[in-house]
């Protein structure tokens, strides 16, 4: 066993939770551009986020068995299950981000630890520390060009790619799970800045925020 402490930070009871954007909705609202909107923005809050670190070969075996997904071995790639609800993204040569439906992260971590046994690896739960913002609509790419310095042209950013890059004056993980959908993973403490930035940059295209 890895001899690390595991800790389920979630509770089953009906305890209220607040997403990283809770304050932002209160302060900046959730604009509705209606029919003229060329841009949709949606927070996918409360998902399970795990950082996996270790050697690609052992981790690949484990996630195949436990999650039924390949570990993306190629840099800057993303794999997802058929539903798109579970994904693994390459972050660095020994680092991956796993995102699963909220509440699945602790059982997943436990199973992975069992499977990995005495191999050298690390799993860190960061579910409370980041949130996922989904961007779609015909102006999505223009919005991203205003926001991230990375080249988001389809020739450089095909579906299934994901990178860590600069978001205005913060950082973000950006990924493209499907043809018309982009996802940004932003840190909780920067989420309000990122939200305000996206509303501002997107205003000229008409933004619809889905809560």
């Amino acid at each position, binding site marked *: 066993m890895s001899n690390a402490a595991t800790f389920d930070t979630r*509770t089953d009871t009906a305890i*209220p*939770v607040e997403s990283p954007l809770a304050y932002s909705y209160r302060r900046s609202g959730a604009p509705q551009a209606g029919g003229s909107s060329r841009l949709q923005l949606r927070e996918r809050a409360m998902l399970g986020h795990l950082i996996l670190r270790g050697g690609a070969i052992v981790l690949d075996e484990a996630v195949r068995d436990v999650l039924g997904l390949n570990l993306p071995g190629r840099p800057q790639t993303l794999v997802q299950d058929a539903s798109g609800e579970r994904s693994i993204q390459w972050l660095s040569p020994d680092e991956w981000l796993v995102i699963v439906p909220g509440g699945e992260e602790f059982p997943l971590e436990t199973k992975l630890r069992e499977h990995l046994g005495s191999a*050298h690896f690390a799993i860190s739960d960061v*579910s409370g520390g980041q949130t996922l913002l989904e961007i779609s609509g015909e102006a999505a790419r223009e919005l991203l060009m205003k926001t991230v310095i990375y080249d988001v042209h389809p020739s450089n950013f095909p579906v299934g790619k994901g990178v860590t890059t600069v978001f205005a004056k*913060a950082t973000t993980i950006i990924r493209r799970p499907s043809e018309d959908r982009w996802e940004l993973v932003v840190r909780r403490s920067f989420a309000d800045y990122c939200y305000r930035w996206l509303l501002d940059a997107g205003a000229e295209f008409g933004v619809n925020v889905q809560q």
Partner: protein
Amino acid sequence: MSQSKQQMFRLNTGGRIDRSRTLSFTFNGQRYQGHPGDTLASALLANGVDIVNRSFKYSRPRGIVAAGAEEPNAIVQLGSNEAAQVPNVRATQQALFDGLTACSTNGWPNVQRDLMGLVGKLGGQFMPPGFYYKTFMAPASMWLTYEKYIRKAAGLGRSPMEADPDSYDHFNQHCDVLVVGAGAAGLAAALAAARSGARVIVADEQEEMGGSLLASRETLEGKPADQWVARVLGELASYENVTLLPRTTANGYHDHNFVTLHERRTEHLGDTAPVENGHRQVRARLHRVRAGQVILSTGAHERPLVYAGNDVPGNLLAGAVSTYIRRYGVAPGRKLVLSTSNDYGYRAALDWKEAGCEVVAIVDAREAPAGDWVDAARAQGIKIITGSAVIEAKGSNRVTAARVAKIDIDAFKVSGPVQELACDTIASSGGYSPVIHLASHTGARPTWREDILGFVPGLVKGVQACGGAKGTYTLGDVLAEGVEAGIRAAATTGYTAQTVSLPSAERLQQGPAVALFQVPHEKSTLRGPKQFVDLQNDVTAAGIELATREGFESIEHIKRYTAMGFGTDQGKLGNINGMAIAARCLKRSIPEVGTTVFRPNYTPVTFGAIVGRHCRDLFDPERYTALHHWHVERGAEFEDVGQWKRPWYYPQKVNGKAETIQEAVARECLAVREKVGILDASTLGKIDIQGPDAREFLARVYTNKWEKLAVGKCRYGLMCKDDGMVTDDGVTSCLAENHFLMTTTTGGAAAILEWLELWHQTEWPELDVYFSSVTDHWATMTITGPEARKLLAEISDIDLDRDSFKFMDWRSGKVAGVPARVFRISFTGELTFEINVQANYAMHVWQTLFKHGEKYGLTPYGTETMHVLRAEKGFIIVGQETDGSVTPEDLGMQWAIGYDKPYSWIGKRALTRSDTKRENRKQLVGLRPKDPKVVLEEGAQIVLDPKHAIPMPMVGHVTSSYYSPILDSGFALAVVKGGHQRLGETVYLPMADGQTFEAEIVSTIFYDPKGERQNV
């Protein structure tokens, strides 16, 4: 037509303007009319406005000279209201729109009747180059006074005094091929690259793409050249891989093919951007382009000849005359004299004649000009005076005559009698200078080509020049070069180019040009009438000659001495002429005088575009904790810690009046010492460390020992850089045998994670350990004070018994129904529990604590109170007690150094140096002011002898100083040389106001020296 009466220089036909629509505009308070397609400059010329400005130094009347970015005179202030003011706009680049309001930037009270002109005329005599350096530098104290008036007189516009209603943004662009300039060369290059499938961006600074082809008398495939332009643009626009950016200037060429483009999106439409769908459109955009290959097809600027009186309104560039006639349907005068050194200049005379105006004469510096355009001029019956030049323009507010004479270029003298030709316009052409500004930004030195009498760009990797920018001026060759550059750029970026069939251009016979820059006058340069080299900066040929006589030999020095090519002008018209004059005076060749260097930006960029959206509340990220809105609602004042907003203190209303910071902090301090306080400590950096070698790794990065820290225990750690100086501190807890949670300072979180990765990846890759930031995952709530246990017990299932959950232990359990890790560590010296929950639950837990805490007097406190409480206990803050020059021993923290650890650790080597062992290093001590009412100033210098003559030897300074409510006294922490041996001594703190405070050196622990309170 009444309209044509007003626009008395407007031609009845020709040009790319829409005569069916009339736009009205205001210049210097006068209303005028123009047409869509006009620039402000062409509309002013159409209305016969000769004087558009007053010159910078001599306040001479100035008129429009050029038709593009190189215009030195027609620099205007734009804007019909205060908020819309834009300085530094070239009238030649500003599209006319209905209601446009502009005025001259120079000239007071106005350009026609200029008071500064009198000063200029008198003062001009006394304003040789270097005048400002020589005159205004002394006395230094007067400079501010001088500067105010010099700036006012200098003009160049003013910034608006009201907030800008417009918005601006940035676009991050990436492409395979960036084509700068969409003239003949650029369009051919873009077409070749685009057909290959490469991602192409085409940027062109003008209202319409096409460059000189829009006003060319040459044909392509036997048809007017602009038809080819329209066809190519149509094809380019149909490609998804092509981005066309008109009205977009490439202003800066930075390292690694990073080019900044300034796109003016709405400046042709009005003062402020129009509103669409309820949103004001972006007025200007800065494209930050990373290009695989850059093609510079920026064309060439025509060089004016330098002759006496060449700044009188009515002196224009020959090419500009053609452009105004052919593109804008304006003849900028009635009677033209053309002075040229080459065949190209002839086109102006041909266009002038075809427009139905009188060409008085073509004055050609060559003895025997020959070529198709020369023949065409002869065929038109235009008089050609050879071997001669216009040596002087007569007139004050407008040219009235040209003085023409035979010249001997080699001997630099007038060699024949002078004749005076009556005219109102003098066009001159001294050949072309390739526009090499962008290439020059990269630091590559241009090279002089004698055959074209111009500098061609030096090129770094990944850039090509083609067409005029490379000194190629024959249309057919220009197109061929463009295609070739496009194909090569596409191939370099991995695309296979398709064939591009070139349109057939006319093959024209041309005679060689002669090298003529400054035209000789009957009088010597220094004694004759002024011959202007740089019109914008009022630099004359005499000024350059004087500079060389005063010993300035390098063109870089001459530039700085005379101001040639300064500022927004960047030497577009004048630099080469200036170098030629310097070369003549120094009896050297032009390349021997030096090359010319240009800097970004090519033309002025509005600050809005530079700033983009990084302004106001988006200027910098604000990081919030999960409890931020509670703090806001509670009325907290915030302190910036890195990018975090941390509650600083929570002022309460007392009798309807808000507490001062002192009152609030005193109340918060006492609440913690006597009852219980709560702090949002979520901002502390948290690093999850896992792996069998985690413990060993900690031992190597911290100064103290970790081998015996048991699961369930916490330990304070001190971290040094390899120089032995303290860089971070914090508590690290053992979660499991192979699992630790490190906390860092708030500001240090990101840097420490990088530091750990650096050492792991480069020095100790053999250690099996991983690090991940969990800072944002956990929210941390610190409850501290004698009542803390009682409060926590009400809402937690954790056994809080003092003997089972000891100081420096951690436990997990539930708090307010939420899974939590609770750490018994203390930064206040009081009984403390640090509750960590997943951040999404933080608000619930915090509110539950308050629900139960009221009866215990639970008081939220901020960073200021935290600082006071920790200082009372002598706990350091890295960055406050330390400044990168303080060792653990300086801090008196020998207990936190494990010199006998089996493996070396970061900083150990440095801590054994003689300097770090020195006895008289500045060491951390406590200071108790003799007068308890005194709160010493942080940063105050400490001396041992207050009677010592100034400069007094300073032995240290105050690092932290506060009023302590529990001690009812001021107290401070300080670093003092040899301080650890000086306990009980008196030191002095002389202040700026003459007061001197006395203080006693004491222990750093002011409260509860035995540390009993945190252990209860």
